């Protein structure tokens, strides 16, 4: 069982990450991946020029490593991969990539779902949308918290 977690500062290609993850996964019957992208519009429809994710030194990476380790403990998966951007992210660029590998699909689906729900609420980032009217800080929504609460 292994978890590989990276915090990256430049745009990444989710297809390349998936290919590399799949190549490294031996004797698995299922690989599930999820990629989250920066949207060009805010929740209420206003245009977003960029999403800015601020991280804090080793704390951010360790927060994600802890979540990945718990996914390995909790689900019958062979491995998982998490890659997260920080800095300025333009609409259409990937923010986060998660992949899981397991002998059977259910564990792979559930572990990926779990990883994303917890990353969305607990990973140590401060996020703001930059638009024509200035910046707006984003906090987890009630829906995000309810999603994360499903695993409590």
């Amino acid at each position, binding site marked *: 069982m292994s978890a590989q977690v990276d915090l990256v500062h430049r745009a990444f290609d989710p297809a390349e990450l998936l290919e590399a993850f799949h190549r490294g996964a031996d004797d698995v019957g299922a690989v599930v991946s999820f990629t989250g992208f920066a949207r060009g519009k805010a929740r209420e429809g206003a245009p977003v020029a960029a999403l800015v994710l*601020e991280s804090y030194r080793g704390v951010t990476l360790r927060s994600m490593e802890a979540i990945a380790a718990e996914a390995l403990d909790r689900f019958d998966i062979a491995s998982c991969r998490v890659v997260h951007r920080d800095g300025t992210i333009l609409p259409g660029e990937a923010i*986060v990539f998660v992949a899981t590998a397991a002998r059977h699909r259910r564990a792979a689906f559930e572990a990926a779902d779990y990883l994303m729900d917890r990353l969305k609420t607990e990973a140590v980032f401060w996020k703001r949308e930059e638009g024509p009217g200035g910046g707006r800080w984003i906090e987890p929504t009630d829906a995000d918290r309810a999603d994360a609460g499903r695993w409590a």
Partner: protein
Amino acid sequence: MARHGPEAATIEVELCGKLAELHGRLLALSVPGEGCTAGIVLARAAEAVDGLAPMVAEGRVRVCINEVVVSDGAAVGPGDRVALFPPVSGG
């Protein structure tokens, strides 16, 4: 007579996320030279930065020392890397 009293220490506190908008990124804070704790840092910061006190009172600001989020009783010494975290946004 000591040249430096118990209030002599000044520490630099990094304000993260939206907290930086209240003051700027770095806050120079006068704290007790001995026996300083994360709780004291938080209380002094709340006095020094306009708009911070309500968030602190609601328990929404955490203290991070040397890359570990700590409770109020944690000791803060010279040379420690201190930051204040507002609630995280998540990824």
